[in-house]
């Protein structure tokens, strides 16, 4: 009784609860090593889960802002590819050095985000369409820059500086991308929960008309949400390049759908006005944990994908969030 009322009052508790359940299931169903220890719980395995989800995770944080504000961003995968390409070319061919390469990559994300937002807000266009166009265009731009080739990264004279290796380094046994993911989660959770901007994001997602009448500069706020999404996608692109030591303009296909899935599993409503960063963090972990445990059992990608489809629906139903609400509305209308 106490638990269910606690879950009712604090929306963000639901996904945390979900992660805990999945975590326990993973322990129960984990294969055992020859010495009898639980492979899933090994430190290396757990950090590996976090490392694998860090890119999608960072993108999902940005996607959460856009979706709470009542939009959607389909261009995140392409922006990742553009940023990855710029990173590889910046550090190898153009010899921009560590700092300027990263600034360039982040700038590409911020400007694509700005364009997404401006077209949506001032062009009075649905963000689905505006970002669909950017999804195509950003990918095209990445292919144009790279002349349709991926760029490998090497180190040394006239190549990448050693400082670029930092992204593959580990600290206290934990890879840097994991630290970045966690730091981004904490920082953007504060931005969403504790600042004026965060409150405004909820408000315009909940009721754009009312927000405008209450004196909010709705267009500006909407653009910022897309800039956040673009910026974080570009950050994910830098990490992507550094981990693979390659900038590939064809990478990141389908990332937008993985990110949307994580956000939705985390309890954020596609109708806007409702959601949380902690939920998205949990959503990302749920997806990561499940593919990890399936991988440990040697289950192939095809089956994993099918199961992921089922998990998305199940997670949303169990949480009884917006989707479920829509269903309820549908049924009450009928009767």
């Amino acid at each position, binding site marked *: 009784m106490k638990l269910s009322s606690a879950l009712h*009052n604090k929306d963000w508790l639901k996904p945390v609860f979900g992660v805990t359940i999945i975590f326990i299931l993973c322990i129960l169903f984990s294969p055992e090593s020859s010495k009898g220890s639980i492979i899933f719980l090994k430190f290396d395995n757990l950090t590996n889960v976090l490392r694998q989800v860090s890119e999608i995770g960072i993108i999902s944080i940005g996607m959460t802002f856009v979706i709470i504000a009542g939009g959607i961003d389909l261009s995140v995968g392409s922006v990742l590819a553009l940023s990855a390409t710029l990173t590889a070319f910046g550090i190898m061919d153009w010899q921009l050095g560590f700092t300027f390469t990263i600034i360039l990559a982040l700038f590409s994300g911020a400007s694509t985000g700005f364009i997404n937002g401006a077209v949506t807000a001032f062009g009075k266009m649905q963000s689905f369409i505006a970002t669909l166009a950017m999804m195509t265009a950003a990918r095209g731009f990445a292919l144009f820059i790279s002349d349709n080739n991926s760029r490998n990264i090497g180190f040394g004279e006239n190549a990448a500086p050693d400082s670029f290796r930092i992204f593959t380094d580990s600290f206290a046994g934990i890879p840097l991308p994991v630290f970045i993911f966690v730091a981004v989660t904490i920082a953007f959770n*504060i931005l969403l929960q*504790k*600042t*004026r901007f965060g*409150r*405004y994001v*909820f*408000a315009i997602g*909940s*009721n754009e*008309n*009312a*927000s*405008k*009448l*209450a*004196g*909010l*500069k709705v267009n500006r706020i909407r653009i910022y949400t897309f800039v956040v999404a673009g910026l974080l996608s570009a950050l994910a692109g830098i990490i992507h390049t550094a981990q693979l030591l390659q900038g590939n303009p064809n990478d990141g296909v389908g990332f937008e759908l993985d990110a949307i899935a994580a956000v939705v599993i985390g309890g954020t*409503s596609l109708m806007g*006005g*409702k959601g949380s960063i902690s939920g998205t963090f949990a959503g990302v972990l749920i997806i990561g944990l499940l593919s990890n445990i399936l991988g440990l059992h040697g289950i192939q990608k095809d089956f994993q994908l099918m199961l992921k489809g089922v998990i998305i629906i199940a997670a949303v139903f169990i949480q009884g969030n917006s989707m479920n609400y829509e269903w309820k509305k549908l049924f009450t209308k009928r009767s």
Partner: protein
Amino acid sequence: MLSFSEISKSYSGNEVLHDVSFDIDYGEITALVGENGAGKSTLMKVLSGVIKEYTGKIIVGNEVREFNSPREAELAGISIIHQELNLIEDLTIAENIFLGREPVTKFGLLDFEKLYEDADEILRGFEFPFSSKTKVSDLNVGWQQIVEIARVFSIDSRIIIMDEPTSALTESEIRILFEKIKILKNQGKAIIFISHRLEEVFELADEIVVLSNGCFVGKFKNEQIIKSELISKMIGKKHYETQRTINDIENEILLNVDGVDVYNKKKIISGVNFKLKKGEILGLAGLLGSGKSEFLKFLYGKKSYLFTGTIELKGKKIIPKYPHCSIDENVYYISKDRKRDGILTGMNITENSTISVLQNYVKYGCLNKKMERQEVNAEAEFLNIKMNSLQQPIETLSGGNQQKVLLGRGLLTDPELLLLDEPTRGIDVGAKEEIYNILMELASEGISLIISSSEIPELLRICDRILVFSRGKQRAVFNTSETNGEEILQFAFMED
């Protein structure tokens, strides 16, 4: 004969129809008149099966009938033409006219030839200049209205209800419509005609039924009643004392509106002239669509219309452009449509209250939620908002309490001028009283208010002066103590 017998209907405790009984004869045109909210539309919704829950009886012929849907009513020979058009814009005129009753060939396919032939036949009767193959979206609103009417003509209805059918039509279109209505009458059909344009009522109707505050006032033969008499019947017997005296007001002028005409492609509001003093409550009276709501939206900058004339706020010329600019000038507006333009669904009472003033609570870049809660708490206490906690989602409150939260949202911005559009719309009687008292208290604290309302008694009670709009024009300004409901209504019904 069609009879209404003791029809009553309430919405959440508010009685909107009270024991309404009268008869309507076939072969006659009956006009239904009354103020906004008198219950005309509700009564017609009861008759046409839109409203299913009511008490009393509807007797058609000698049978008591109950309709569960508009479709059932239509099959029983009762058709309604709504004020809002019900056409499917992407279909052709013919497809709309015969929607759900399309002729089919013996193979079960649509018989387009017959469809368009039959439709053209009906349209000819309306001197319709387009082929029935025209898409409805290509027509202007006037012709769309005629299509809607043609649809009803094609059904063999015995009772035809028209809710303000002429509001979007031009003079020549109205002539054609009236001719058709007279033909229908001669065919022995019963026509029920709702209109705010009393001139039309007197031109067309045989019988005039007056409703007031949900009650049946009387049924009169056209020849036996004149316009001013009709209007005084509509206002009813109730008498309202104003609770305001001119002495309450300081003399400093806050807002000076001088010769303002407002344009949205064409002129939509004209000749607005008034001075609003500090701590004064000005009422805007008028029928639906008279321009009173539009004027408030314009003044707040909800829509940035072009205008001529001058508007001075605190002696400074202003051009209303955006809500956030108006808020900076200490002007705040609350819409009549709470759900669409007011509440932030899914967000709690605190968040809903402070959305316009978040800058006041920023400390080290973050919101100081404790300070926020304290201020909202004080405001909620002043407004007497009934709630379980400040964390409660706003949509779980009653209409009256939602309205109080929105009022609180405005008050937190420290306004000097409050623009309220129908501030007591859809809220129960008790909450209405509370809101009246709150508004008068605010005025005594020096806030000026402009209140637009369709309920004249409400304006008479709480306003110092009342400005009357009709057809987009300012017609008169009265001191509340020197006027009465009848006089205001006379001006509200004024035509060019």
